[in-house]
């Protein structure tokens, strides 16, 4: 039960290919794993932001009072500032992964991170 030289070369090449591929895909991730943030107020869709690298936007939802200031920076998004009493939405901080969300219950603002391009792999991977 010894590995021959050919075994070792094959294993080495395969590992090099896969690790190289993973590093490559992480560096040039783009299209594969783009996320978007769906912002809704009072249950109605308000705005959808595509979270892409190099993108920055800060905008304000609400009136003079009852507001949320939302900041998107590259692949992440957060509530920068709000005048809600509990400040939970601000303390949630940055979110970037698909099931994460920020909820401001008092002002009924929800920011959900979802996959931008759905590939329904999960349905067939079984």
């Amino acid at each position, binding site marked *: 039960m010894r590995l021959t030289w*050919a075994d070792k070369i094959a294993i080495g090449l*395969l590992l090099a290919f*896969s690790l190289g*591929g993973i590093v490559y895909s992480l560096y040039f991730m783009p299209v594969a794993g783009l996320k978007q943030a769906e912002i809704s107020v009072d249950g109605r869709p308000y705005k959808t932001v595509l979270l892409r690298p190099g993108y920055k936007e800060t905008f304000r939802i609400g009136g003079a009072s009852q507001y949320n200031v939302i900041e998107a920076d590259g692949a992440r998004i957060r509530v920068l500032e709000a005048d809600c009493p509990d400040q939970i939405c601000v303390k949630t901080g940055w979110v970037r992964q698909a099931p994460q969300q920020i909820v401001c219950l008092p002002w009924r603002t929800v920011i959900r991170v979802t996959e931008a391009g759905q590939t329904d792999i999960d349905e067939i*991977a079984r």
Partner: protein
Amino acid sequence: MKTKHMVLLGLLTAGAAILHIVESWLPTPASAPGVKLGLANVVSLFALAFFGPREALYVLGARIVLGGLFSGAIAGPAVFLSISGGMTSLLVMALLNRWAQPPFSLIGVSVLGATAHNAAQVAAAAILVGSPGVLWYLPYAVLFAVPLGAVTGMTALFALAKLPQKSLS
């Protein structure tokens, strides 16, 4: 085909089908869909080394049909993936076993077979979904295939060493 031969192939098929079904109960890691342990591949490899490519093909075909029947989705995507992965893997392993056994050991044959299996499954999944984006999983599939294939090869080697050779004749 001798009766003993046939009985042994039947036993192998039953073992392969059980492994195939048990494996389908296990959850797959979310980060790498299509990655399976390849337990049933132990039997394919064993049949290939002990009998030959034709017998291995019989066992593989019967195993996929049985596995499909027991999972209740004989025409489902899982069976399509099993066929594409299993056939490609067996083809690669049969060719290597026949022509490249001296440089490679059975472990190397198994590693390359497992790689072919996972690569073919990812490719089949990409065709099924109609999106080449699925091919991004290929490196992950290969990464998992190497250690799992090595374990499969060692298991088959152990089984071959323990099984008395004269049980065939």
